């Protein structure tokens, strides 16, 4: 009996439920100092002077550092470089020296005995800034070419000819609001130096620990193996946590410089103006159709408001937007163009389903507008254009993240049909609005393709210790997705043990120095495949040693339930060997080891993959719109999603439901707004409105395991981003339906002001009563 597919309870739960998790700020070191980052209060300006004298002499303060104290003018390089773009002029310095470019940009750090004292001292620092005009609208004409960090095009075919010959051309504009992951745990870093040994222990790099370790080693001029990033709990990742930020250099550097542990725990206001923002794009999207409603061509002109710098993601988000835009459809010609514009706002990076939340919203909203204009039912219009199983795998002449875009497997029309059936069965279409008043119901649907399992590799070690426990050392990190449980299930399945005997360490760079991290929905796909292979290798080695111990042939042995027995020996005349027995037989000086054989019941395996795997799905939403107040309530929500194979369906459903909640936030509530001088207007949870339980409906999930991925031994596809991908699209379509809009909604989030304006624009036109 395999444990793959079982709804096992999570291994992470007991410690987290008991308050025994180890989050960043839960860890302290003897003699530690605290750091407070001093940030620019101006959106754009010239730094004339920085007076730290008073702060440096404040009680309890050990040091105050500014850009002048740094080794050189350090900038943070790009982690995800896209061929053909040079962003070297747009990278963020560790500390701003002459110019500040957004409110929240680090300019100094105060270090002292106590975080309260550090905050007091930080207020004593006087920054003399000559203000300059702030660029806040990426589309404004004042945005000269010097603010364009990159321009890129993805596409194929002759779109101009297709548009010229089309029976119908449909075009909309859609602005996607600036919002981001906003995990509930703010960032935290603790750096503990062992000065005499030149070593450095780091707690708090929780996404790509090996990459961050290597970059830090490079910047500090240290050998990378002297730095150990520890595996800790992370209070949500969602793309933003664990990228290399200025603080990721500053805190370790201060610890080395001062020879004492230094801790930095971000506060919420800092988080909301310092951590990667995301999503802000302006789409001008158009489709050409023939007279049967078949897509002839698609084009999208996208402006990305990237904020003040290009950070570690470079232009990966706009590139993904353009590359993934055609989605699940047959698109004979396509051109996506992106202008990446710098503005005086917090720099942008990835947020769960980067580029796809935005692109899916633009494409799927366009299709609903097109359905109205062409007089075709929106579902039928999609069915007519979806790629069919006979067209799979479908290669698009597009590269993304350095890989060729090949939609690997699936039956898109069957999934859409199933989603529509399920929505019907659950009564999504038959609902009526409360009588009277201004309330109207709307139904919206969206179809999408996700991507997952980005390579190029992941490495895993599986080791059986002498107690018989199985240890997995993965390069992934634990941030709430349940990686410990999932990898334990994969190990248990491959090795033939109880998953409760498997202990997973995720993201410790000493235990797994070749990891690539947890992001891009890659941990189960790539990390899981590496663990699968390593566990199979341990199984093989265990059987080899057991054969020696039992003086039997390997092919006569079976490993199940954690022990080896001889096949066809029901009376157990031969002793069973536990994995503990075999691990002891693999210990150094064991007589069972042949000369030259390495000791230990252990294996390291690397899983390499050059293509991503593409899960897909459909979302459906029922909303109630109050045309008087502009309030939108999501009443029902359905996600239909194909994952190839679910290692633990409970966790997959959890990923999807959580993604929907975040998507509803981005579609209706969450936005980083700025005033006309570039002051951020959302720096607390009062202005940055995360949805509560009152705003999130129960989410219906239809999970499919019909299209195993051909690209990995487990057949799995990633599940991390399918819940959020199409929420903007489905909610926009449902609101449009409720208001019977002839065109599009124009922007997300659909806040009350926008909804009232849309409702008023349709006043005078006949609005139907019920959905």
């Amino acid at each position, binding site marked *: 009996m395999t444990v793959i597919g079982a709804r096992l309870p*999570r291994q992470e*739960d007991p410690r987290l439920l008991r308050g025994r998790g180890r989050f960043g700020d839960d860890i302290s070191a003897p003699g530690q100092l605290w750091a407070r980052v001093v940030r620019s209060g101006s959106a754009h300006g010239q730094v004339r002077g920085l007076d730290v004298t008073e702060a440096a002499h404040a009680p309890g303060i050990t040091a105050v550092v500014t850009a002048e104290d740094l080794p050189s003018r350090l900038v943070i390089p790009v982690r995800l470089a896209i061929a053909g773009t040079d962003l070297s002029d747009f990278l963020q310095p560790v500390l701003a020296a002459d110019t500040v470019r957004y409110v929240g940009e680090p300019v100094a750090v105060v270090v002292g005995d106590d975080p309260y004292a550090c905050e007091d001292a930080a207020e004593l620092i006087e920054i003399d800034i000559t203000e300059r005009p702030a660029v806040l609208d990426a589309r404004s004409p004042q945005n000269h070419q010097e603010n364009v960090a990159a321009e890129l095009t993805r596409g194929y075919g002759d779109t101009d000819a297709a548009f010229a010959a089309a029976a119908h051309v449909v075009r909309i504009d859609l602005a996607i609001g600036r919002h981001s992951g906003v995990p509930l*745990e703010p960032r935290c870093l603790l750096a503990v130096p062992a000065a005499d040994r030149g070593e450095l222990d780091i707690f708090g790099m929780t996404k790509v620990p090996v990459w961050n370790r290597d970059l830090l080693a490079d910047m500090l001029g240290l050998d990378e193996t002297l730095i150990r990033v520890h595996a800790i709990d992370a209070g949500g990742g969602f793309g933003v946590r664990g990228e290399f930020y200025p603080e990721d250099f500053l805190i370790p550097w201060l610890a080395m410089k001062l020879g004492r542990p230094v801790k930095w725990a971000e506060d919420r206001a800092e988080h909301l103006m310092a951590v990667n923002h995301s999503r802000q794009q302006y789409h001008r999207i158009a489709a050409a159709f023939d007279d049967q409603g078949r897509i002839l061509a698609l084009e999208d002109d996208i402006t990305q408001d990237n904020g003040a710098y290009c950070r570690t993601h470079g232009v990966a988000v706009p590139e993904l937007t353009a590359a993934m835009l055609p989605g699940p459809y047959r698109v004979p010609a396509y051109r996506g163009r992106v202008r990446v514009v710098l503005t005086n706002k917090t720099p942008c990076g990835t947020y769960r389903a980067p580029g796809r939340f935005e692109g899916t919203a633009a494409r799927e909203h366009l299709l609903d507008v097109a359905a109205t204009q062409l007089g075709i039912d929106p579902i039928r219009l999609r069915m007519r254009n979806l790629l069919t199983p006979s067209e799979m795998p479908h290669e698009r002449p597009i590269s993304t993240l350095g890989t060729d875009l090949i939609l690997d497997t699936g039956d898109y029309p069957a999934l859409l049909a199933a989603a529509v059936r399920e929505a019907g069965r659950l009564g999504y279409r038959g609902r009526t609005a409360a009588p009277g008043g201004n309330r109207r119901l709307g139904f919206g649907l969206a179809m999408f393709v996700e991507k997952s399992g980005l390579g190029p590799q992941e490495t895993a070690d599986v080791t059986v210790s002498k107690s018989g426990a199985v240890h997995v050392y993965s390069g992934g990190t634990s941030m709430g997705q349940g990686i410990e449980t999932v990898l334990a299930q994969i190990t248990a399945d491959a090795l033939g043990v109880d998953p409760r005997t498997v202990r997973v360490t995720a993201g410790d760079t000493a235990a797994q120095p070749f990891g690539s991290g947890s992001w891009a929905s890659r941990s189960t796909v790539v990390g899981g495949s590496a663990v699968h292979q390593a566990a199979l290798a341990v199984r093989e080695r265990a059987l080899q040693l057991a054969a020696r111990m039992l003086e039997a042939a390997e092919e006569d042995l079976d490993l199940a339930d954690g022990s080896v027995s001889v096949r066809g020996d029901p009376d157990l005349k031969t002793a069973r060997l536990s994995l503990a027995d075999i691990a002891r037989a693999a210990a150094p000086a064991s007589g069972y080891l042949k000369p030259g054989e390495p000791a230990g019941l252990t294996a390291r395996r690397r899983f390499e993959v050059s293509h991503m795997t593409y899960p897909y799905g459909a979302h459906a939403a029922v909303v109630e719109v109050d045309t008087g107040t502009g309030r939108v309530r999501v009443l029902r929500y359905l996600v239909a999603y194909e994952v190839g194979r679910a290692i633990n369906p409970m966790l997959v459903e*959890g990923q999807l439901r959580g993604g929907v909640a975040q998507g509803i936030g981005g579609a209706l509530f969450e936005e980083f707004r700025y005033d006309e001088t570039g002051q951020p207007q959302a720096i607390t*949870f009062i202005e940055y409105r995360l949805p509560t339980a009152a705003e999130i409906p129960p989410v219906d999930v239809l999970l499919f395991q019909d299209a195993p991925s051909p690209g990995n031994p487990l057949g799995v596809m990633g599940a991390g981003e399918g819940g959020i991908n199409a929420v903007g699209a489905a909610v926009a379509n449902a609101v449009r339906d409720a208001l019977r809009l002839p065109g599009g909604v124009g922007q997300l989030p659909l806040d009350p002001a926008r909804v009232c304006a849309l409702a008023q624009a349709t006043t005078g036109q006949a609005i139907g009563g019920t959905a």
Partner: protein
Amino acid sequence: MKDMHEIRLTVNGHVHQLVVEARRTLADMLRHDLGYTGTHLGCEHGICGACTVILDGAPVRACLVFGVQADGTEVRTVEGLADGEQLSDLQQAFSDHHALQCGFCTPGFLMLAEAYLAEDTTPLTEEQARELVASNLCRCTGYQGIIEAVLATARARRPGRKPADEA
């Protein structure tokens, strides 16, 4: 000069006596002075509820209470819920209903629900559970599992009664 105060309080049944600065929050005091790091700080301005603890029977945001205000009180934190290695019924329900992912907000939800369920013994409806859960923020789960876990615990704690949402 720091304004220091000597206080005495009980946390999960253990008596603590310590000297704290007047402005130190209860959350920082619990976490950094007394080692109860299960109480988490997500916003430090009273919105997210991750720092919720039970102070003399009532759920409070520990980021909005000063440590000195806890002088003479009885505080319960998440560390006090389990009986030895045995999870409480509410903790077990959270695991059973997949009510947590990253687990950072979880202690706050547990203490919020624990305080509510201890005080209010009338049957809990789905709507009431949703309203209760809407007091705090969770970024991972979409809340469904949390609501289910609270409802399941409420039902189980009323043996022999009909579940509220089926009555």
